[in-house]
């Protein structure tokens, strides 16, 4: 009952046979062996599993891998280019936006999508834009500061 799918993750084509019930998150983590994407709740609330699907931030725990057949996916592993941090990664580092790091991949991807949509968000817009992600360690102070610090700067 497995189905063959093919998708692109961080620019690399991945083909596999998957059970229709396998989530995109599990597919990314197990089949594509990209474990940067995290699972915090598996019911669509915490945002730890956020990835970009055709440029849109989605919760990969709520999507089946077969639904992503043919899609372009970007995960946290796709942010840095040629060994250079993306400006968001650098900003998260500078602003102490992570402690245990478990929520970080999801926040990075949500922030990335937020800035794509609104390159110059206000603090309120940042908070609103990240309110679908939960961090239990930082009280969001460093995360908001990090996104603010790169808001308005060019890609």
């Amino acid at each position: 009952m497995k189905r063959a799918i093919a998708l692109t993750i961080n620019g690399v084509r991945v083909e596999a046979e998957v059970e229709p019930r396998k989530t995109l998150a599990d597919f990314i983590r197990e089949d594509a062996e990209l474990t940067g994407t995290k699972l915090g709740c598996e019911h669509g609330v915490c945002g730890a599993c956020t990835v970009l699907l055709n440029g849109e931030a989605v919760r990969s725990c709520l999507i089946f891998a077969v639904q992503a057949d043919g899609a372009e996916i970007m995960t946290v592993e796709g942010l840095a280019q040629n060994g250079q941090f993306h400006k968001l990664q650098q900003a998260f580092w500078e602003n102490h936006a992570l402690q245990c790091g478990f929520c970080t991949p999801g926040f990075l991807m949500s922030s990335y999508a937020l800035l794509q949509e609104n390159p110059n968000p206000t603090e309120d817009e940042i908070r609103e834009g990240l309110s679908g992600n939960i961090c239990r360690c930082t009280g969001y102070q460093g995360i908001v500061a990090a996104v603010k610090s790169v808001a308005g700067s060019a890609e």
Partner: protein
Amino acid sequence: MVQMATPRGKWIGARVKRVEDPRFLTGDARYVADLTLPRMVHAAFVRSPYGHARIKGIDASAALAAPGVIAVLTHADVASVPPLQDPIALDGLKKTPQTVLASDKVRFVGEPVAVVIAEDRYLAEDAAELVQVDYEPLPAVTDAEAAMAEGAPLLFEDLGSNVVYDQTYRFGDPDSAFQQADRTFKKRLHTNRFMASPMETRGCIGQYDRGLGELTFWSSTQMPHMLRLSLAGFLGIPEQKIRVITPEVGGGFGQKMTLYPEEVVVAFLARHLQRPVKWIEDRRENLMSATHAKEQIIELEAALTNDGTLLGLRATCIGDGGGYSFNTASALVEPQAAALMMPGLYRVANYEARVVAVVTNKTPVGAFRAVGWTAGHTARELFFDEIARELGMDPVEFRRKNMIHEDELPYTTCSGQVYDSGSYVKSLDLALQTVGYDELRARQAELRAQGRYLGIGISPYVEPTAWGSEIALQVGFPFPSHDNARVSIEPSGKVTVAVTTHSHGQGHETTLAQVAADILGVDLADVTVVFGDTAATPWGMGTYASRSAVIGGGAVTLAAQEVREKILKIAGRMLEADPADLVLADGKVSVQGSPDRSVTLAEVAVSSYFVNSVRAEGEDPTLTATRFYDPKATYSNGCIVVVAEVDPETGQVRLDRVVSVEDCGTVLNPMIVDGQIHGAVAQGIGGTLYEHLVYDDQGQLLTGTFMDYLLPTATEVPPIQVEHLETPSPVTVQGIKGMGEGGLMASPAAVAGAVLDALAPFTPKVEELPLSPERILRAIGTITD
């Protein structure tokens, strides 16, 4: 005893960004769920759907026949494993053993009853649903006071009662204080059950090597060596044949301190099946089976003179411990900690405390950041607000009047804590000044005239930190507590620091490297901090109770100082100089006053290891030292002020400002201290306004997902302003005091205090938390039914 370190260099106290961060930012960091071993199989637990029931039989045949299933185990299969029970020996504390898989009874929803092992997690979960358990439901009891009542359903029939501890402590002469009082006051507060809820749930992998007789166990735990000791005892595997490794740990906050039955079962299975076994719980399991926290029923009485001087206090702290009492330190962990610290930073000469721990048909309770203190501190501070209001005093003046002033330190409280040093009044003043207290009061009056309700909550605190043997005793838990560090200069001159305190977000790879770098005169980049592997570190207890900066930092200091002496001795011989005249800095040793005469640390190291002539006969060639540290008691302090506006029509609360003044002695890295405060305050906001584990009267958990258990997001947590004071401890190495819990100890009282201050014109009555909109509307009489 004051142990002074070498003078501070350039790293300690610097706002250094974290050396561990890059791997988390790229997605390369590996948590236990990210690990895969050859031939690995997956476990899923069958959990009780009843709060209280007798197990009459289990039929696993359908599950065993399901695709991919390898085994199903129930209690009978693991009967050789002893039950989990409280290790602490306290007079009058009753034991409530829990078998790792339920045997005859279940006592809370979520209790593990059976385990299914299958080729993947999907199949294991499918099959877990096919295990048929025949339950005979029993009446449940889900309220601590109801559980204490005559005729309540008993969780443990042979104990004859649900009360596992009930003791009264008397300090000073409380009865006379109450007789002499001009006025007495009372308050009751039932604090809400909430939980640590780390973003990474619990999980572990066991792998058993039959040839070597060795168990390797990867777990998301805060205390690797303690876990190893426990596994050895439960499984009968020699301790030295067990290696516990913690990969990255995605937050703990106390929840991952304790040994869980699931961990014992997974380790058992690894040996039983001769295959690596992995268990990663889902969020629902975490919400119903990992330790809950913070719920107490607290009753307070205060004796005062007419001018507002506190003469005495009485407290009853009833801890609602859930189905079993063994996690961390039993159902006692909440009420005992609350009661012993109830006087806080106030002069209370006469105090009586009754500590009661009760089992109920809810999830067992364990430590969570500021265990016991959150509830106790919140009850006391809200009580003091009420007293001040009744006396017509400003809440600040009432506190200032009864607070221990700096010139009274060191101060021994009536309940036995020795406050070594601090800035109690100064912190209060700085917080008030930062927030602009007088202007705020004026603004509050203006807004009230317009029908708007602004409130200010003030919460000064003293925080027991540096959990060593002495402070443990002072705050009610007589259990030795210490840790080790091993500092080594490798033959190449690079530095390895192996510590037993554990980092799961606290940034030890940076802070402890800062300590070593300063003492050894090397660059931060030349120091690697190792932890989280019992095979790679000396023995130690782990991370809990704000102890790592002090104990980890102290042990690293002592070991690094010893290594430093060794370096100087060798370098002295190489340079033909007296070690006392040598300077160790910037990776080299030079002679004071003649910087040309120098050798690099790498040259010293390679000589020490490989050139016999630089060593005296019989001298150790390795540049390494292992030192333990068990600090004397030290206490941090601070003050949190919250400004909130409440809408009396809807019960909605908007937090406008949070100011946190923190004094944790010598600061290793202010950026990390700020981060700890931010996170703890956010948890306090959650626990005061949103987070609540709700049960029905049959013991069903009604908040089993993140849809109903509400954690605060970036829109609920306002900017948090942190101000630092630095009063180094006179009794610890480097003057470090430790911190991390004060934010969750003190912010709930500040948040709730601000809400109640805002609503003061309505004379709100609040006996329960959290302050949900509905509860607020009831408190001010908008909802009456």
